């Protein structure tokens, strides 16, 4: 009973945060709130006894991706532009899909039910074998790395491909338009890399000063 109450509380918090994220135009607030959203969903996973997932959610969702989004936000204007398009069509689609999903939930097996299809196919074998035969108490690890080894290999390759894509997109772009002379480089590059709106112009001036300083530091050491 307490577990259900805690879950209701956490889901309510998540809904409130989601609505706030949609309503807010300040990107900084949006990023911080999505970090909080991840942390709350991590708490919910702990409550559902999925500690491995909670661990990942807390580390990736609340930790790294917040930092990465903040780093990306430094290149953007501080506020989102107000929406000018008509929202009624998309809203209707979202509402219909939402209603369909909620109706589908009714057909799902009850939470934690031992007769659920997911728990009667291969799961009993995994649970019986993992500790007794392989002496690995954490079944999640056995399933992830051994029984589902191919899936995890695929996941690792996807992460690798994501890293490659980011290198190709972001590292390649800064290289081409820059002047060759190393003396003019610190001045020119921030202006090239950024859009010249009034709010970012100040920032680029600051960071070019910073870049000069760091370049000096690098040269002296």
């Amino acid at each position: 009973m307490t577990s259900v109450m805690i879950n209701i509380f956490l889901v309510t918090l998540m809904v409130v945060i989601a609505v706030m994220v949609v309503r807010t135009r300040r990107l900084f607030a949006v990023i911080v709130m999505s970090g909080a959203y991840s942390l709350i969903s991590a708490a919910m996973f702990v409550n559902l006894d999925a500690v491995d997932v909670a661990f990942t959610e807390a580390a990736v969702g609340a930790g790294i991706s917040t930092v990465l989004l903040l780093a990306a936000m430094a290149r953007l204007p501080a506020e989102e532009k107000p929406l000018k398009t008509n929202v009624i069509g998309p809203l209707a689609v979202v509402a219909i899909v939402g209603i369909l999903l909620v109706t589908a939930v009714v057909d799902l097996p009850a939470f934690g039910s031992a007769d659920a299809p997911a728990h009667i196919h291969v799961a009993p074998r995994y649970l019986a074998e993992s500790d007794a035969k392989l002496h690995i108490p954490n079944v999640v690890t056995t399933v992830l790395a051994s029984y589902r080894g191919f899936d995890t290999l695929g996941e690792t390759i996807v992460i690798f491909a994501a890293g490659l894509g980011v290198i190709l997109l972001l590292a390649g772009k800064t290289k081409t338009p820059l002047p060759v002379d190393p003396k003019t480089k610190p001045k020119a590059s921030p202006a090239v890399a950024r859009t010249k709106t009034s709010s970012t112009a100040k920032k680029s001036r600051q960071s070019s000063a910073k870049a000069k300083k760091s370049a000096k530091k690098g040269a002296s050491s």
Partner: protein
Amino acid sequence: MMSSNPVFRVTTKILFAPIILYGLYVQFHGDFGPGGGFQAGVIVAAAFILYGLVFGMVALRRLAPPRIVAVFMAIGVLIYGGVGVVSLLNGGNYLDYNALDHHDPAHGQHLGILLVELGVGVTVTSVMMILFFAFAGYGDPKADEDGGQG
């Protein structure tokens, strides 16, 4: 990015090693408790990102050159795939860890899972660091001198 605040600098210096130690614990204790390569990779990368946030991107590039980090990205996948190739050569199926140790299949499973998780951890750590280099160092002139990986 750089912080001259002594509280941040001292805290980061004190916490840097324990965070990596905790990451290694999560990495190699994944068989017995929650954790594994994915979580450990993120934790280790978080230590480096913290270092970069406090001491600046130039110091982070000196500590972990993006070129080398990018190589480790591939090394992780190769470790994972390599375990599969070794089990093939030992007469099993691809990624069949039982084949890693013919006398004690359970030991083969332990070894296989440990190595595979290590591969995952190495790839996740380096990809997270590459993402940070790319987003936080975008348009930074120093990145080009390092070979343009940041």
